[in-house]
């Protein structure tokens, strides 16, 4: 019985530590630098959920890893306008392609789904209104922001 409790506790700790910890969007909003006129911005986020929380694949943007898909976490990157290819690789590689214009902000949400062996994480494009609402509940997981 004692062993069972220990296992349960370890499982709970593992699940909780899988979620993003960091300042909430509201706390860092004022520290987010303004977007340069010759660049576009892409926000990546994942809504907090225990389902598939342990699966945290890296996110690649045009072949370069820019961060990880963490439940309840968000980060952003600024890029030159053009074609964007986002890849999340779990047991299958899944791409999301879209365009980015100068001064434009796009929102990419990663979600989990069932897989054959493990869960899958896939990226999708989200409307500004929906994304901004969901982003309020997430924590910043990107590189430290200057004050």
């Amino acid at each position, binding site marked *: 019985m004692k062993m069972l409790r220990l296992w349960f506790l370890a499982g709970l700790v593992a699940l909780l530590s899988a979620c993003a910890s960091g300042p909430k969007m509201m706390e860092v909003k004022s520290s987010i630098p303004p977007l340069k006129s010759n660049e576009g911005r892409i926000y990546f986020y994942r809504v907090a959920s225990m389902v598939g929380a342990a699966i945290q694949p890296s996110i690649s943007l045009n072949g370069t890893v820019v961060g990880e898909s963490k439940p309840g976490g968000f980060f952003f990157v600024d890029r030159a306008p053009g074609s964007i*290819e986002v890849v999340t690789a779990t047991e299958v590689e899944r791409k999301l392609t*879209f365009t980015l214009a100068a001064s434009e902000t796009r929102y990419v949400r990663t979600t989990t*789904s069932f897989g*054959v062996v493990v869960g*899958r994480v*896939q*990226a999708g*494009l989200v*409307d500004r209104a929906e994304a901004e609402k969901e982003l309020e509940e997430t924590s910043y997981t990107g590189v430290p922001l200057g004050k």
Partner: protein
Amino acid sequence: MIQTSYPENRRNTLGGTMTTLKFLRKIFPVVALLLAGCASEVTRQSTTLSPVAPSPARQYLVQQSVLVRFDSGYDRTIQAGTTFLEIGALKQGKVLKPTNAVFTIEGAHVHEAYPVVNENRIVGFYLPVEQAFAQLSNPVTLSIEEKGIQK
């Protein structure tokens, strides 16, 4: 003696078949989800967009939501109130870029897509990154209203 029921061995066979069917019915959603992860690539052909020249472009407003079903098995709804900008044309029709919403089509991968409209019917989608046209097997009527020229 009058036989009122199936012989024992026949009953067992039927029982086994029923159990198998019940099992298959139970696992069907799981299998469907797994297969969805193995969806085929969106069928498309390379194309060249002829941009609206010179701008400004026409703006449109969707008056009625419409469900679009793709050959890959996925579907998407274009909501009433979505606004579009006519950004150019393909030989299949005019290309409308959503301005207050995002629209993607999905197969093995997910692609941003702009509806291609011909005589108020969505005949397919233009994939701006792939510079390709994905035809819709079953075109759907899109109820749109022209809202003037973009300033």
